């Protein structure tokens, strides 16, 4: 009983003030005008073509980021899981280390690397004879989001693969499965929980990325987070901003539901986040 009481400050003070109340405000701003219920704002979001493009941009940037992180991250996680524990700990420290630094600083570093006269331009000039500037393009935003979120893909994958019972792999090889067969029939299915939590941890925050597109997109790569911020802060119009926020929340919920479903159908190991 006493221990339950320890959670009261969180449940009765923190949650109502910082989680429930703000959500209610958002819902109110999105569906009420001058005190009466309206769906005009929702209609406005879907009928004008001013807001949906930013949503599509967010979705495709999140999808590509997730896919690239998975393709890059899976082999790394697998190799890590086959290493000796101490070596693996040391190597994974290298992945985590950049995360000790604030994300804004990392993004700022990318700005310098990708800018005219930056490292990237020098490399492309060396390779093709023509310096290319990709700062202020979707490619620049993608590079930074992939860089930022890759550790969030590798770590859950590594944890799942490490916990996997290696005797399954040995049994498959003993019974005559080829390397490819062992991977597709045994290792891959067993690592689904890690893949799922990796995807969730990359896709969801990537979709609502805000600072990266603002700093590297040059105002030309519009993601939904920036549109929300502008509607509320620049134009003092919380109605559309709130409607878009709710839309974003719904999208996140849908993607979580899909992940959960895939997870349940596939996993018998009962692995969860990390």
């Amino acid at each position, binding site marked *: 009983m006493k221990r339950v009481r320890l959670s009261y400050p969180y449940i009765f003070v923190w949650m109502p003030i910082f989680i429930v109340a703000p959500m209610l405000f958002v819902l109110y701003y999105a569906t009420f005008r001058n005190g009466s219920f309206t769906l005009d704002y929702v209609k406005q979001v879907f009928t*004008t*073509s*001013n*807001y949906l*493009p*930013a949503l599509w941009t967010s979705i495709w940037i999140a999808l590509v980021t997730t896919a690239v992180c998975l393709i890059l991250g899976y082999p790394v996680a697998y190799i890590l899981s086959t290493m000796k524990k101490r070596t693996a700990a040391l190597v994974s420290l290298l992945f985590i280390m950049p995360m000790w630094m604030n994300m804004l600083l990392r993004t700022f570093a990318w700005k310098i690397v990708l*800018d*005219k*006269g930056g490292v990237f331009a020098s490399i492309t000039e060396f390779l093709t004879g023509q310096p290319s500037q990709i*700062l*202020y393009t979707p490619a620049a935003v993608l590079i930074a989001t992939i860089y930022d979120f890759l550790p969030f893909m590798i770590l859950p994958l590594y944890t799942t693969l490490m916990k996997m019972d290696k005797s399954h792999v040995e049994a498959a090889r003993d019974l005559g499965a080829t390397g490819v067969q062992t991977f597709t029939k045994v290792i891959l299915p067993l690592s689904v929980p890690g893949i799922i939590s990796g995807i969730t941890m990359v896709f969801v925050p990537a979709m609502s990325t805000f600072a990266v597109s603002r700093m590297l997109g*040059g*105002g*030309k790569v*519009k993601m939904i987070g920036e*549109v929300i911020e*502008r*509607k509320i802060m*620049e*134009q003092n*119009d919380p109605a559309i901003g709130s409607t878009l926020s709710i839309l974003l929340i719904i999208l996140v919920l849908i993607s979580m539901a899909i992940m959960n479903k895939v997870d349940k159908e596939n996993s018998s190991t009962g692995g969860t986040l990390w």
Partner: protein
Amino acid sequence: MKKFVSLILAAAMLMALAAFIPALTACDSSKTINLLNWGEYLDPELKTEFKKRTGITVNEKPVTSNEEMLQLLEADDCPYDLCIPSDYAVQRLIKGGKLAEINYDNIPNIKNIDKKYIDITNGFDPGNKHSVPYTWGVLGVLYNTTMVDEADLGSWDLLWNEKYKGEILMYDSIRDAMAAALSRKGYSLNTVNEAEINEAANDLIADPSLYQAWVTDEVKEIMIGGGAAIALVYSGDAVWMMDPEEGNTDLEFYVPKEGSNIYFDNFVIPVNSKKNELAEQFINFLLDPEVAAQNTEYIFYSTPNTEVPALLGEFLSECSAFNIPAEDVANCEIYKDLGEDIKLYNTAWDMVLAKR
């Protein structure tokens, strides 16, 4: 347990004390005025000088936007005695009855302010009853002389010139970007004609690849580093970027012939202040020619003070962004507070944001 409680009490008392100290120094002394100002917008040496001459201490609190100033000034328990908001904010504060009338008997140096600027500021403060102009600036075009041909200069068209595709920086601010597009077509910057607003917005997205990026403060580092050829900027920022010490001497500035926006930042005294006379003394001090010149050399913004130009150093007296020709100023318009009509701009701007 007792020790713990007493520790907590001690901490609470310390915190209460800490909260009181700035309040004490800010409000209690009768020889102190509280100034709400933009950051880096007053030479700090002048505060020391003012204290030496009059014994009055000036407490400065920096803000970053007119919106922030408005919020602080519109509060009922506003503790400030002097503030420097821009034209449209002054207009709104007057409408809300938040400003005290200024007693010009205490400001003899008002004679140093050029009559032609008073005529403009009358547009947002009829009779200048509530405000005294401090600095002004004009929206215009900054360009790099090593990258732009002289024949292309003079008009807003430079921001739409295909020759400089990818070398142009736009100012990522709703009224300012729209101002360039509107005055290029000969429309008023304060138009509430929907067709004109939409035409201007469509011009801004006619060819998105023209613009390297839409920026605000980043414009400084990019232009100084030669990363772009052309940028839409305010004259005050332009002077800063053209400064031979920290900027780039290849940069030049002009006000397009079609006209542009002119803004004024103005001294105002909040209606709740009880130290009007001290505040007026400080305004008078800052309008003194020597003092104004020293301040101008520090902040780099154009001044309406007629006595200052003769006292300035070489850079400012020759800088094209500091010495805006009178005929260009006459061609400029101030922004008006559009009230509800700003929604027309917001809708058009949403389209620009989605397609640029």
